[in-house]
């Protein structure tokens, strides 16, 4: 028996656990309906095409839909993986002829991969139905905006929660911490802007942009569309290459979190 079959076995098991009927269907319904209900074109009326595309995708990745998406990811990573550790299912999975890291990959592929695929697939399909011209003309802006929003908070929280869940070996507490961190991120975002305006220094915005690359993208596109007084407009306007750097840094942090999680799962996790 090759490695493919046990990998698929674990992947199928994880899929069954993460997306019991009708969980997947409920989230698919919410993502699809939310794409139409929360799409807001008004933000882009007086702006350039790229700013409008950014503004539109940002409304779709705003609070209600992003929170639903984060809840799905946190439920899968914290509660799903935590339950496996808590109930001793992981011991059974370790009996498969697979390296530990492959077992975690199969688990995360289901918990994260399918969730991200579902969220992005449905939203892009919805955008295609709603505004195909915007999607076709400004596809790079749409891609960048989604990349920034998925990086933080979604993947960043998933990485943090993976570490927490492995350390605590319980999903419930990790899930609560994840939700608290999501809202803390919203508060910190506002706080950093206030600090920047208060001190006249862009350092706080730059630090926050490393953790949340979307703030750099926002400052870049809002400055592009208007020359007036807007978020970060007075203290900090990054160039496009800087935005890419912040996005890269954001993904690097996410990658580091997952690598640490993998190493811990591979070498240090005792069951």
């Amino acid at each position, binding site marked *: 028996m090759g490695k493919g079959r046990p990998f698929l076995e674990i992947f199928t098991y994880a899929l069954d656990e993460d997306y019991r009927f009708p969980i997947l269907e409920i989230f698919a319904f919410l993502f699809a309906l939310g794409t139409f209900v929360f799409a807001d*074109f008004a933000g882009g009326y007086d702006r350039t095409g790229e700013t409008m595309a950014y503004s539109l995708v940002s409304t779709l990745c705003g609070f209600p839909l992003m929170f639903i998406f984060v809840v799905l990811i946190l439920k899968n990573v914290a509660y799903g993986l935590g339950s496996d550790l808590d109930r001793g299912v992981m011991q059974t999975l370790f009996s498969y002829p697979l390296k530990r890291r492959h077992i975690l990959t199969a688990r995360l592929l289901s918990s994260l991969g399918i969730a991200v695929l579902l969220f992005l697939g449905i939203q892009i399909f919805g955008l295609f139905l709603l505004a195909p011209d915007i999607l076709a003309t400004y596809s790079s802006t749409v891609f960048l905006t989604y990349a920034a929003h998925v990086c933080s908070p979604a993947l960043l929280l998933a990485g943090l929660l993976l570490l927490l869940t492995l350390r605590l070996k319980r999903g419930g507490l990790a899930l609560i911490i994840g939700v608290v961190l999501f809202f803390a991120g919203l508060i910190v975002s506002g706080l950093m802007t206030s600090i920047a305006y208060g001190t006249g220094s862009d350092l706080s915005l730059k630090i926050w942009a490393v953790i949340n690359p979307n703030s750099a993208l926002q400052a870049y596109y809002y400055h592009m569309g208007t020359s007036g007084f807007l978020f970060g407009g007075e203290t900090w306007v990054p160039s496009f290459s800087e935005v890419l750097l912040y996005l890269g840094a954001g993904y690097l942090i996410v990658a580091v979190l997952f690598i640490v999680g993998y190493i811990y799962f591979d070498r240090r996790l005792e069951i």
Partner: protein
Amino acid sequence: MRWITLLWRIGTVALAIGLALLVAWLIPSSAEYPYRMSRPIEPEQYMTGGLEVYSPQNGLQISVEATDNVRVYLLGASSVELDNWKTLLREAYPDSESPDLEIFIEFYTVPLLFFHEAYPEQPLPDFLPLPASHGPQSQSMVWNVTVLDKGLQTHPEIILWDPPSGSVFSHELFPEDVLNIMAVVANPSSNTVEVDMEIKEVLAVAPKDRIIFPAQLLISIGIGLTIVWLFSRKFRKSIF
């Protein structure tokens, strides 16, 4: 059996997305802010109506009634494109420093662009280039149907709706981008035509004509795959 289960789950997800599209389709749209215009159009002249910004969730409903055959168009351009044309017009007519010209460039960008492209050497008339039948006949150069035809040949990409000529028109349009849209009614005949035009803003969650087919398709796929799964379960039970 796993493949059947996988197909069933793909089907139920398709069904869920299809139902979401159906719900979006069922949410009623509202037609508001009617803009009415009733005026005669002189022979071989055209007029424009209401340049407004519309989006995929904020479309327009147009109805036109005329006493004789007319041609109706809906033309759309992005704000960026429109700004470029305004700049071009300001550069093309630098001597016309009248504030009225600035207002006309703002509101009649497309007709003035068409005129400029048809007669690049021709200066703008000193008087206001009012739409047809609102001024003396000498103003008609700007609003001539041949100018419109040339303009539309040069910029076919801005035509959003171009029905065959007639005397009664009704149409609902949701653009695929955020666009500045205006209605154009042209009278190609040699008689003056009375035209009544009404434009309403339609607010909707999604353009109904664009989502109903995907909704039907996804729901059909979902139901089909679920039936396959149900049959395969029944078949398995009957064997074992």
